[in-house]
Each structure stands twice: as structure tokens, then as C-alpha cells.
């Protein structure tokens, strides 16, 4: 197979895994935030680490959960960042070790508080790489807080508890989730009793980019035989199930009261905006637009971006370059057409200016072939249209 030879010679583009590495870098870049209550500096008990996807799914989650944790223990800080899972999954071991080392260093600098996680992938990786950290989950902390007032859900339909694959053998975490459900009087049924063989929703390994069909098949297989709505305690699972058409909740939806069963899956292409909003909410500030460019688009275009692994930030870079350099086309309807070479791909966007640094995005697409100057010596003609 040609692609195997190309991979071994490092001639295959990093795209689409590069998309996920960029997600990680953004979570550790302009979306990163550390919130430490001034009066508890140097004497923190908990450090809440929501992970890169919680705020990307719903920007309100991190702050809402942080407020609950502060009710349980005021000496709690929150750190919006990423554990490095995308680099681990793509095999970028040096990059992943650098992320983990930075995480460990920050944890030490904060006085080694108990690291409180919301994501089982974060837990799996930190348990494995940084065993001295000994993280716990937010579900265990909240379940053990007997005095914490939780909403009551009388008359709710029975939910199917879908443990994430990364919760393999994590019986204490499942027990904590069940305790929370019982305290909130939510009827539930455990979908897979055996915690050693939990199925994957299709998110793990970020296989969606290189093999969307495999990811979709995993999601479909997971939900196909269960009529009850799902309850997840991994936000990636929740979003995948919702995207596959399954009514799904995250346990934090019930604990915080933020969302109901009908919440659709958030667009992949807009998750970087969600992270920036999560940061703004945590800091009590206005959200800053990437490159100061505001994008407006309908759901169909956002889906187009998801399918192509093109983020809104990519499009902002494209528009910024086109508007600054003038290197773009315009059609008879006044639609702007421009392109931007990225890592291994060239993305194209069609857009229309709406106002001061505000643009309506109408279409996106990409190709991997790279335009070169001059004729090749051994050229092969692309077949005609």
C-alpha cells in the first residue's frame, strides 16, 4: 500500500492528527487559565483540572463545577489546560512528556494539592505517567460531600449509565457516580456491569479524523441496542452519543442543572471558541475573538468545517491574511474567495464582510495537493473534467 510507504518515509501529512495537536496547544495556549483564590495561595487543598474538552463542549461547565467544588472546599483552585492525551494518542511521545512534565511542575509549584479531574482519559494518563500525583475525580469529591445540596429529579425516565472506556476497572469512580445519581433520585441502569471490558464510544485515539467511518461505527454499535437515554461521565462520550442521535446527559448536567437530554453535540470546529469562552467565564471577563475576527455562519457551514477538520481559527487566519495582503478573488455576487496553506493541506473559504472585522462564512473546503511552480520532469496529467 502506497500510504504505508509514504508513512514510513514521513511523506504522509500530519493532517488530520495535526488538528488534535492544535486543539491541545490551544487548550494550553490562549484558552489556558489558572484561577487561585488569593487567600488560599500556598495552602490549596484541591486543584480542579477539567481537561481540554469539558469547556470545549459547554463553556459553562468548568466554572459551574468549580463553584460547587468551592462550596465543598474553599481552598480550591482551577486550572484550564490539557493533560496531553492528543499527543499521546498520535504517538508524539516527546511532546506528550513535555506536557506531562509541565503539568507536574505546576502541581508542585502550587504545593501539591489533590488534583481533581473530570475526564477519565486525563486520569488514565496521569495515573500512568505521574503516579505520585494520585489524582481523584470530581465525582468522588462531590459524592463524598454529604452536606452539598444537589438537585432532585423526581419522575425522570430511567437512564442507562454508560461508563467510558477509560474508566476500565475504576470501580470507585463508578460507585461515586451511582451515589450522586441516588442522591439526586435519578433512576438508572448500568449498561455494562463488567468494568474490565467497557466499549469505546469512538472518540478514543481521535480516530474521527483519519477514519470517520470507524468512529461512527463504534458510536452506532454502542447505542444501537439500548432504548433508554444515556448518562455519561465522560464529556466526549456524551457528545459522541448526542451526535449519533442518542438522547444523552453528562452527570455534570444533572449536578449543575445546566443541560437537558436534548442538547446537540457541539461543533468540532467551534470548540476553540468555546474554550476561550470558558476561560472568560472563569476569569469574569469578556471573551476575546481570535485575531479580533468575528465569524458568523449557519449550522450547515459549521458542519462542513467539522467534516473537513477545519476550525474557525483556521478560517480567521485565512481571512486575516487575505484581507491584509489582498490575495483573494471576488465573484460577481461580491463573495470573497481565499486560501491558506496549512500543515499538509490548503484550505479555502468563501466569505462576505458584514461589518468591522465581522465576516459571514459561506463555504469551506480543502485539498492536500500542493501547488508548485514550473513543470515537473516526470509529470502525470490529472484526468480532465
Amino acid at each position, binding site marked *: 500500500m502506497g500510504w504505508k510507504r509514504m508513512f514510513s518515509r514521513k511523506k504522509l501529512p500530519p493532517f488530520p492528527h495535526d488538528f488534535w495537536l492544535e486543539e491541545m496547544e490551544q487548550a494550553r495556549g490562549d484558552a489556558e487559565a489558572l484561577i487561585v483564590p488569593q487567600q488560599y495561595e500556598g495552602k490549596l487543598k484541591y486543584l480542579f483540572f477539567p481537561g481540554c474538552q469539558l469547556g470545549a463542549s459547554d463553556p459553562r461547565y468548568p466554572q459551574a463545577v468549580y463553584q460547587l467544588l468551592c462550596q465543598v472546599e474553599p481552598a480550591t483552585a482551577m486550572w484550564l489546560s490539557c493533560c496531553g492525551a492528543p499527543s499521546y494518542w498520535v504517538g508524539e511521545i516527546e511532546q506528550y512528556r513535555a506536557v506531562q512534565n509541565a503539568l507536574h511542575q505546576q502541581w508542585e509549584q502550587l504545593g501539591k494539592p489533590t488534583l481533581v479531574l473530570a475526564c477519565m482519559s486525563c486520569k488514565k494518563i496521569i495515573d500512568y505517567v505521574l503516579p505520585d500525583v494520585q489524582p481523584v475525580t470530581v465525582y468522588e469529591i462531590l459524592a463524598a460531600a454529604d452536606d452539598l445540596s444537589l438537585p432532585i429529579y423526581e419522575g425522570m425516565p430511567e437512564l442507562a449509565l454508560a461508563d467510558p472506556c477509560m474508566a476500565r476497572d475504576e470501580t470507585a469512580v463508578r460507585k461515586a457516580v451511582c451515589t450522586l445519581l441516588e442522591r439526586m433520585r435519578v433512576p438508572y441502569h448500568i449498561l455494562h456491569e463488567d468494568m474490565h471490558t467497557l466499549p469505546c464510544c469512538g472518540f478514543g485515539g481521535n480516530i474521527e479524523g483519519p477514519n470517520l467511518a470507524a468512529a461512527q461505527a463504534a458510536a452506532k454499535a454502542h447505542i444501537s441496542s439500548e432504548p433508554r437515554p444515556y448518562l455519561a461521565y465522560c464529556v466526549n462520550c456524551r457528545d459522541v452519543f448526542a451526535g449519533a442521535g442518542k438522547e444523552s446527559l453528562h452527570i455534570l448536567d444533572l449536578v449543575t442543572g445546566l443541560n437537558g437530554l436534548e442538547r446537540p453535540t457541539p461543533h468540532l470546529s467551534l470548540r476553540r471558541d468555546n474554550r476561550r469562552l470558558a476561560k472568560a467565564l472563569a476569569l469574569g471577563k469578556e471573551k476575546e475573538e481570535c485575531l479580533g475576527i468575528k465569524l458568523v455562519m449557519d449550522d450547515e457551514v459549521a458542519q462542513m468545517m467539522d467534516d473537513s477538520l477545519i476550525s474557525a481559527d483556521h478560517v480567521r487566519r485565512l481571512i486575516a491574511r487575505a484581507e491584509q495582503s489582498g490575495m483573494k478573488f*471576488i465573484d*460577481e455576487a461580491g463573495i470573497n474567495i481565499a486560501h491558506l496553506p496549512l500543515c499538509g493541506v490548503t484550505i479555502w473559504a468563501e466569505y462576505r464582510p458584514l461589518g468591522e472585522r465581522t465576516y459571514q462564512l459561506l463555504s469551506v473546503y480543502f*485539498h492536500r495537493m500542493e501547488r508548485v511552480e514550473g513543470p515537473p520532469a516526470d509529470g*502525470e496529467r490529472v484526468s480532465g*473534467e
Partner: protein
Amino acid sequence: MERKIICALCGKSLEMTETFFDYYGHHLHKDLPCCPSCGQVYVSKELAEGKMRNTEAELEDK
């Protein structure tokens, strides 16, 4: 009706010009709309998601 596109930088209509591409060591060429002044090449969505995508896949599967 064919879409009329001009180069925003030069204000000129595009002309079909032989254009060259490389896909990880594989060389290809095709006539594409191009600005006669600055050389910007326009790749349509139809071409990117049709012939180009198919050719990329064929080369990867070889």
C-alpha cells in the same frame, strides 16, 4: 451559468493556465483559472472535493 471571478489584488479576469501540483513526490498538472498578472490560482470546491480528492486517494492507495 459559469461563475465570473476576478483577482481582488489586480482586478483582472482569470485565464485558464497550466498549473502544477505536487502530492508527496507525485507530480500533476492541469489547466486552472489563474490571474494573468499576479499568478494567483483559483481551485473550486468542485475540483478540490472531486477530481483532486479522488487523485489524492488513488495515490495513497497505490
